[in-house]
């Protein structure tokens, strides 16, 4: 498109120069806010049909213009279009300074320029995706949709719950930021998903590697940074309707958004509703720890669910001050696979459970996440100040029928203050405040500094105990400096100090147990009151080199992570894999050192890159299966204890892509992680949930078919995953597998209305395979079978 435009413009210029008679001319430069030239900016002079495109120095020259009054339109992708009224006589010289556009992402996707710039400034490896990517790769949850990115996998339970995993790191080792504030749910639980509406995501960035420096202690494995703010041109009111369906779990859903802007004020609101049934697996029965469980119509019993989300953003855009106020409420309910919940695999009444595919029976989880955020930004000359304030409440309830085990009474007593079927409840309140200051000192030095504060309070309820109530405070201060040596070389260095305090409450059983030595009834203590304080100094050094088509990155850093309440004080049965988990109150904070490299070579047609890393943990905290059994609470479940050991990990990703034709791009992406415990009980073993090596081959054909069907694409993904033989108890070796996905989509015109259609056929061959990082892998449940996804997006304008 751009090239055609350029060609058109140059022909125009050429033609007009032949016939022009007057001698006036207009020349000048187009620059950005930092006075850097903008190459390839378009200039259009109306009412003449003259125009120009800026050269490598950002210069332009339009000659042979008739005297008179003109409007000069200057545009550049990613920047706000400018119109200047000028009177031209003789030779006029002029400098146009462009303002970076605040992206209106539903229309203009994150531009190449923006992500390119971001990649150049960050010495860690990052992946940036936009809404189009999400539409074309839509999965059961947001994290499932981005699994296609190199180095990213997910930890899943069922079809709607997944957590991000970056190079084998997950749970509390990956920070998810939504609009600048750390998302706080119950990340520690493998069965707990991420409470984020995937339709509301405009831009998503994944930082692979320890980003603790800027994002705090938990970012030891990486960061998923989600932005869903949307800005629009003045006096615009519009919206979009999203309709989606999936065959595998009979999902129906939709999302409606409305947005508008009047001068400095804008709003953006969204409602999402999803409802899905039990999902299908390509097998007639599963074998959970040797217990054979037949499946009705190949459906995983009781994995249906629903989601209802609301969000509103109110914003103000001023010259120097912008503010966004954001409220969201995510509400979901989903069943757990009914046969695999409790102290052992169980029989359920199949007639009841298989009567309907869409009902959600117990065991089930219900999650409500409320979020209120305010983002304010001041820009004063070379200084920009940001404040992010947030409040979150995460209410998580797990329900299951009461089954007495251990010394629990056979009948559930009344007046315990909660209903009999409430297995566990976690009610978390989080307040956070982040302040950042970015200062530009001349052309070469960029300084940024910030303070992060967070207070969490987590209350528990229900009949079963896993972690105690706790509160924790964390405070971090950082300084980062970036020095641009010349146009090729830049350096980064940063320092961060963290302080954290955690307090856990004591907890006693609500039922008496029999003390074998004295043969008396005692109310056993499950956790004791605990106060721990942590502090740490982390640092990082980075280097970026750019020349033409080649870019090199290197980053070395130390990061740390505070142990969480579960690691310190867990003491209960994990009802999903029939184990008994015990914390260790003496754990020290994890310390990790990591070296990251990144090499990219990109031309217009060809690109290749590799991003290796090596990582060393002085003490990695993990759940170690012991040879012991609990004889107090279940029927003798194996005990798993939180332990720490030295861990060495290395691996990386690579990609290669080639434009075979202007309409056809082929590529391959590979990822690989190796981990080994160097000390401790499991010396020589890997880490739990280690993602296997995989290759993803992709071919994408795209073109404009006609004026009615635009942006047509067909893509084929072929994933080749190696077996995972590096396992640690209780895992099993997972065989390698191959899967095919086919995607197809376009924008088409219907009744003068543009409609965007994306379709995807996942697991085309209905292959039965196991995903080593799925939580259900532990109980031998294969991945979902063939799935056909259709997504329709209908944008509309009420007023322009």
């Amino acid at each position, binding site marked *: 498109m751009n090239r055609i435009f350029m060609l058109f413009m140059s022909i125009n210029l050429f033609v007009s120069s032949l016939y022009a008679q007057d001698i006036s001319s207009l020349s000048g430069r187009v620059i950005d806010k930092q006075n850097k030239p903008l190459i390839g900016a378009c200039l259009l002079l109306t009412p003449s049909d003259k125009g120009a495109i800026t050269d490598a120095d950002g210069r332009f020259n339009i000659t042979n213009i008739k005297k008179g009054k003109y409007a000069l339109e200057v545009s550049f992708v990613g920047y706000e279009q400018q119109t200047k009224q000028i009177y031209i006589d003789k030779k006029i010289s002029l400098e146009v300074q462009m303002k970076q556009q605040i992206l209106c992402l539903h229309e203009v996707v994150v531009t190449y320029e923006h992500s390119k710039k971001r990649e150049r400034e960050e010495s860690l490896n990052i992946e940036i995706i936009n809404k189009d990517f999400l539409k074309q790769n839509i999965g059961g949850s947001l994290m499932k949709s981005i699994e296609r990115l190199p180095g990213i996998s997910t930890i899943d339970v069922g079809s709607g719950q997944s957590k991000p995993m970056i190079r084998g790191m997950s749970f509390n080792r990956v920070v998810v930021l939504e609009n600048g504030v750390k998302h706080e749910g119950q990340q520690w639980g493998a069965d707990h998903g991420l409470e984020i509406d995937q339709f509301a995501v405009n831009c998503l960035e994944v930082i692979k590697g320890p980003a603790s420096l800027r994002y705090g202690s938990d970012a030891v494995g990486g960061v998923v940074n989600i932005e869903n703010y949307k800005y629009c041109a003045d006096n615009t009111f519009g919206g979009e309707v999203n309709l989606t369906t999936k065959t595998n779990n009979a999902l129906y859903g939709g999302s409606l958004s409305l947005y508008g802007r009047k001068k400095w004020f804008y709003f953006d609101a969204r409602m999402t509703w999803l409802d899905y049934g039990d999902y299908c697996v390509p097998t007639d029965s599963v074998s959970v720890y040797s217990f054979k469980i037949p499946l009705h119509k190949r459906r995983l019993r009781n994995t249906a669910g629903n989601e209802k989300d609301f969000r509103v953003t109110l914003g103000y855009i001023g010259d120097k001050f912008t503010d966004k106020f954001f409220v969201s409420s995510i509400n979901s309910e989903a069943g757990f696979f009914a046969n695999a919940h409790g102290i052992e695999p169980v029989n359920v009444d199949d007639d009841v459970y298989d009567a309907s595919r869409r009902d959600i029976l117990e065991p089930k989880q219900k999650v409500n996440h409320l979020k209120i955020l305010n983002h304010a930004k001041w820009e004063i000359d070379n200084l920009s100040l940001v404040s992010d304030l947030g409040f979150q409440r995460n209410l998580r309830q797990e329900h299951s029928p009461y089954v*007495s085990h251990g010394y629990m009474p056979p009948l559930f007593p009344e007046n315990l203050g909660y209903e009999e079927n409430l297995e566990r409840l976690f009610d978390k309140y989080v307040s956070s405040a982040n302040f950042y200051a970015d200062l530009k000192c001349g052309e070469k030095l960029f300084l940024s500094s910030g303070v992060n504060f967070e207070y969490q309070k987590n209350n528990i309820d229900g009949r079963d105990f896993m972690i105690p109530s706790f509160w924790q405070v964390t405070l971090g201060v950082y300084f980062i400096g970036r020095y641009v040596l010349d146009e090729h070389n830049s350096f980064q260095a940063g320092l961060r100090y963290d302080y954290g305090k955690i307090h856990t409450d004591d907890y006693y059983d609500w039922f008496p147990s029999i003390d074998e030595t004295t043969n008396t009834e005692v109310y056993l203590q499950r956790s004791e009151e605990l106060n721990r304080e942590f502090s740490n100094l982390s640092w990082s050094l980075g280097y970026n080199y750019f020349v033409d088509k080649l870019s090199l990155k290197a980053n070395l850093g130390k990061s740390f992570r505070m142990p969480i309440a579960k690691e310190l004080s867990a003491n209960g049965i994990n009802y999903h894999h029939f184990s008994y988990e015990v914390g260790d109150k003496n754990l020290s904070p994890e310390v990790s050192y990591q070296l990251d490299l990144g090499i990219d070579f990109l031309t217009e047609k060809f690109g290749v890159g590799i991003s290796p890393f090596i990582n060393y943990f002085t003490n990695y905290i993990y759940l170690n*299966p012991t040879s012991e*059994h609990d004889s107090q609470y279940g029927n*003798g479940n194996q005990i798993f204890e939180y332990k720490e050991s030295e861990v060495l990990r290395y691996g990386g990703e690579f990609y290669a892509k080639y434009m075979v034709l202007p309409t056809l791009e082929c590529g*391959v992406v590979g990822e690989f992680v190796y981990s080994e415990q160097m000390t401790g009980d499991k010396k020589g073993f890997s880490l739990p949930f280690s993602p296997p090596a995989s290759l993803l081959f992709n071919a994408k054909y795209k073109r404009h078919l006609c004026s009615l069907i635009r942006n047509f694409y067909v893509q084929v993904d072929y994933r080749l995953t190696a077996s995972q*033989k*590096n396992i640690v108890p209780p895992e099993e070796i997972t065989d390698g597998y191959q899967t095919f996905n086919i995607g197809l989509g376009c924008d088409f015109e219907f009744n003068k209305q543009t409609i965007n259609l994306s379709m995807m056929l996942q697991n085309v061959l209905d292959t039965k395979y196991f995903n080593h990082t799925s939580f259900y892998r532990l109980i031998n449940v294969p991945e979902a079978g063939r799935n056909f996804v259709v997504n329709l997006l209908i944008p509309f304008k009420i007023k322009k």
Partner: protein
Amino acid sequence: MKKTIFLSLIIVLSFVACNEKNDVDTQKPQIDMTIDGASPLNCQTIYYGEPFKFKALFKDNDALGSYSIGLHNNFDNHSHTTEINECAHDAIKDAVNPFIFSKEYMIDKDKKESLVEFEMCFDKGNDKGNFDDGDYHFFISLTDKNGWSQKKGLSIKLLHR
């Protein structure tokens, strides 16, 4: 050019795929109930107050850890067994004073094989009266030194005589 890339990818992948460790234990222990005189067996009836034999053979490639025996009622038929033959269950009923048993037993260090044989006897009742008759689930869990585990679930009936 493309061929070279493709070839090197295959090499990388095969290297990766073959990069497995051989020196760590990846085998689960085994519970062998097919030995002569193994007890209890699926669908067996055990009587309160009367001794019965527990006999099983435990095996591991490296070293055994411990085992546990757990008994809990199956009056609502929620449990099923790891055995192929299912047993006839009594009608579903509510528990009044169900029998509960859960105990861990250690195995001598560094043993690869252990034939366990001892007598068990369950009390007829407690201070609340007689334990409930009916379907129970007899659950054996075995671990090895490295934390691998094996489970066996048997359906039995516990009755008074």
